[in-house]
């Protein structure tokens, strides 16, 4: 990755979720697309304002579950029919009703791990460094009680002066530059 220099974006701090959602809606309407908001708890309206609706986490979860059930059932079948056939009181080797139970458990195991690690991977975590953590006021509030909107510099519409003026028309506590 080439070394990045200069400005990552402009970060506006708000006191309430309503102010954040209003500002995000206005920024979207003004044509900004490369932006992200940061909140101390999930704010659905903020995601709507960013026009971010769908996630692929459920799809990963489904694929994981299908993989789990198939793996477990085929494994049990192979082991008990071909790998190590044992005569247990004359019961059929392919006792599929009994195989359902471990297969059921592995469906849940694989689906759950896919959902959890899939979410982490889609979020690009772990990522211990991120430019917004450089902002002096970010760590004081973003995970406690403040709401942030970051308009990022790689947006074609971004201009340090105009974007700053745009953000300052909202009741933001502060608007600060974020360095890479």
């Amino acid at each position: 990755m080439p070394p990045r220099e200069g400005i990552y974006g402009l970060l506006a701090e708000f006191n309430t979720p309503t102010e954040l959602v209003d500002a995000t809606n206005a920024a979207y309407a003004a044509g900004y697309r490369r932006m992200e908001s940061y909140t101390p708890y999930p704010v659905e309206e903020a995601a709507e304002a960013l026009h971010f609706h769908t996630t692929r986490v459920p799809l990963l979860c489904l694929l994981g579950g299908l993989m789990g059930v198939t793996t477990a059932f085929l494994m049990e079948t192979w082991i008990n029919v071909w790998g190590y056939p044992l005569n247990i009181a004359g019961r059929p080797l392919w006792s599929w009703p009994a195989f359902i139970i471990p297969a059921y458990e592995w469906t849940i195991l694989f689906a759950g791990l896919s959902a959890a690690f899939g979410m982490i991977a889609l979020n690009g975590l772990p990522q211990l460094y991120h430019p917004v953590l450089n902002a002096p006021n970010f760590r004081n509030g973003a995970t406690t009680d403040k709401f942030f909107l970051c308009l990022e510099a790689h947006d074609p519409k971004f201009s340090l002066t105009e974007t700053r003026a745009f953000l300052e028309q909202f009741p933001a506590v502060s608007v600060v530059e974020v360095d890479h």
Partner: protein
Amino acid sequence: MATKEPIIDPNLDPATGEYAVIAPGHNFKSVTQKISGIVLTSNTPLGWFFGLIVGGGVAMGVVVGITWLFLKGVGIWGVTIPGAWGFAIINFVWWIGIGHAGTLISAILLLFKQTWRNSINRFAEAMTIFAVVCAGTFPLIHVGRPWLAYWLMPYPNTMNVWPQFRSPLAWDVFAVSTYATISVVFWYIGMIPDFGTLRDRAVTPLARYGYGLLSLGWRGSTRHWIRYESASLLLAGLSTPLVLSVHTVISFDFAVASLAGWHTTIFPPYFVAGAVYSGFAMVLTLAIPIRKFYHMEDLVTLRHLDNMAKVMLATGGIVAYGYGMEVFMSWYSASHWEFFMMWNRMFGPMGWAYWILIATNIVIPLTSLWSRKLRVNVAWLFFISIVVNTGMWFERFVIVVTSLYRDYLPSSWGTFRATKWDYMIYVGTMGLFTLLFFLFIRLLPMIPMSEIRMMLPQTKVHKGPKDAEVVSQEAS
């Protein structure tokens, strides 16, 4: 209840007459400070050290007991023929049942949108994990040659020996290991945003570094939150069938055997209800002293205690039905063996255990929990929680021992007498549980901060005139 006196209490919600879920007057900052303060403070309360030392001291029982067990073999326990299952299986079922309430609170109540659960969710999940740790120990040390316990797992080996999947023992391995894994993952995923908060509020570099690593660099991005919420909901949806299956599979250990008193179809639902019953009792046993000690009465309010007592009342009712149905079926089945088993269970040499079970699981809790006054009486509730946990242990004792020690062949009848090693390891696991729990409340946020923030009235987003503008622009 026809003539209701108007209640004047600031903690009561005037609309519903219920206790408020969070006491009034909190904001984002105050809840964050209050919860993170317990972890980040440099002044560890003396009481915490006291609890840690007591827990650690009692946990020595596990270390000593298991060491002697490994040297001598399972003969040091009271298990013998015909009572080949003793304390190890009783304790295993008891501990894993206790764990069930944590998953119920974190998963099922989340799906039902019971937001009051947010305050008790984290430490109930921690309770689950520590209970599964204690539970998992017992089957492993009960296998006789514990150094070969890994043979239970299906893995390619030069002996070409594989597990036998028609056996409930193999089902247990899959159910309990999945339960432990998913519980840990769900617990950790739930803590990631709170680790972010702790990283940002930590004063010492070590705490900042440690919580920073654990937070994976969480920064509260909205896109991350949406995926996070989606994953949490999926994990809750997956944990719900999981928790119901785990105690079902454990009940199969009994129900699949053709022993009178074990071979019944009522076992799966009756085991699951009993698990939830004992689990909520354990949550109360833990929550009541902790909320007092850490002054958490405004986050874990009487509403929580009241609701948990109601869940206990409902599940206790199911358990009572299960007991009644067992007695009925032993008569209705017209099976001589079933009839004798029940007579022996009630009036045989170990009949006392059955009557302790009826008194502690049914009579004492189910008569008193109907009263709202007693449900919000903290001292009484604490007492009830201990009583129910005792009762649920006796339930497993009765099931395991009374069916085994007098089976079909009177010439092989025997008895069961636990040894000091049985007691030492059992009490030791309680110490281990306490030790782990004390470490948890000191090092990890015991109440989920991000979820508590969501319950505050400040979270509401007002649709202002700006919204209308945007909508009209988009429409045009």
